[in-house]
């Protein structure tokens, strides 16, 4: 471990403790770490977007010679002036920072919304609607070479009727009374099981993150031992 690695580890340990101090109550150490994190993270995303996408895919495509020796993208030997369009749209997006001409950003937003609407329409239809219905069309009575598989049949019924009942709960064009009300109530139970399982898994996830942080603090403490 180099000296710089050690310094980075110490700062990281101190930052972790500053954030954890919020568990006792809000305090200046926590506020300091929180505000520093906000600033650093905003710049992080910005730098990464510029370096990984805007320079190689836009700048280098329009003005390939300007990145010679820095970015070895020989593919863009001929300028691709079509990329001036996203550059122009991008500048329009930034007009949002100037209230007088902020309305121009709508043109760029329209491209983003148009892309999202067009792709979502098709992708959700295929993956989350048609494919899900297809996956629900399973046999309710399962017969194996050994005979009727009662447990598997019951489980398949839970899946098929569970989906139907839960969908009925989300169907608001009919009043939830009588038979419809009963089906919708069964739907709530199915959803409750799903939410219960989600809660269990959420607990599991959060504990995992804490384990990771405590392990990191252990490493941080050990670094003091190395110095002493």
């Amino acid at each position, binding site marked *: 471990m180099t000296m710089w690695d050690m*310094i980075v580890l110490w700062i*990281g340990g101190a*930052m972790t403790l500053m954030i954890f101090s919020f568990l006792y109550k809000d305090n200046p150490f926590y506020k*300091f*770490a929180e*505000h*520093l*994190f*906000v*600033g*650093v993270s905003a*710049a*992080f995303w*910005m730098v990464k*977007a*510029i*370096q990984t996408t*805007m320079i190689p895919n*836009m700048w280098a495509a329009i003005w390939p010679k300007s*990145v010679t020796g*820095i*970015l070895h993208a020989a593919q863009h030997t001929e300028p691709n002036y079509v990329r001036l369009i996203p550059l122009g*749209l991008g500048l329009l*997006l930034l007009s949002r920072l100037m209230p007088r001409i902020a*309305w121009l950003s*709508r043109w760029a937003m*329209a*491209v983003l919304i*148009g*892309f999202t*609407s*067009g792709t979502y329409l*098709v992708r*959700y*239809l295929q993956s*989350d*609607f048609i494919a899900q*219905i297809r996956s629900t069309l399973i046999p309710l009575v399962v017969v194996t070479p050994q005979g009727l598989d009662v447990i598997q049949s019951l*489980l398949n019924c*839970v*899946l098929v009727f*569970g*989906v139907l009942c*839960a969908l009925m*709960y*989300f169907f608001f064009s009919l009043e939830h009374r009588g038979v419809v009300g009963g089906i919708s109530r069964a739907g709530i*139970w*199915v*959803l409750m*099981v*799903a*939410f219960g*399982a989600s*809660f*269990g898994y959420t*607990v599991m996830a*959060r*504990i995992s993150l804490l384990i*990771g942080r405590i392990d*990191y603090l252990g490493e941080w403490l050990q670094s003091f031992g190395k110095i002493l």
Partner: protein
Amino acid sequence: MKKRVPLIIIFCVGTLFVLAIFLPFPPFPAMEGEVSVWFDILKGFAFVLGGGNLIRVTADKIRKGHPDRFYLWVTLVGFFGMLVVGLLQLGGPIAPGGDFTTEGLWFRRIYDGIFAPCMAAIFSTLAFFVSSAAYRAFRAKNREATILLIAAFVILLGRTPLGNSLTAWLPDFLNFLKIPWLFEKILMYPNTAGQRAILIGIALGIISNSLRLILGVERSYLGGERS
């Protein structure tokens, strides 16, 4: 200009991506590919917009004498520090590929020393809050809450050796009462049923909203008003 142009753009771009699925011959695939790149580049601009907005809002608060202005300065110093260090690739060779690996790169040090530990620590505090919530709010108040509680209990118990040993003594024909079996089947069947119903519901909502946007029926993004 202010409203009609965005509507036309959305219609053209949205229709292009729908048509590209059904008409997989030139020029549609190439057009789809190129407009997708524009989208990726515009997403990059969105990060720049986010940074610009942070400066504007923070500077505004400082100018108005916000009581937390010391911390707001910390935000600005953190932002500009990371921005300069990242864009100029201080401490390492210039490589606009966004390479992290170079030893000595200050961008990497700030990431490892400040960004990553803060982010991880903020998320890990949720372990404490979720535990407190489990004690204070997770109660069998009615039938629905009891079902939710039982499901969560089985899931949590199923992940411990205690859960396995509690029901390990049961004979094989009562396998369906064993915690590991229940754990697995809850996830695979009622959970899948519930999640699938939610998924189908969301898909229907997204499909209809996408159509409304492409056809110009939904216009709230233009300033709040609907047609």
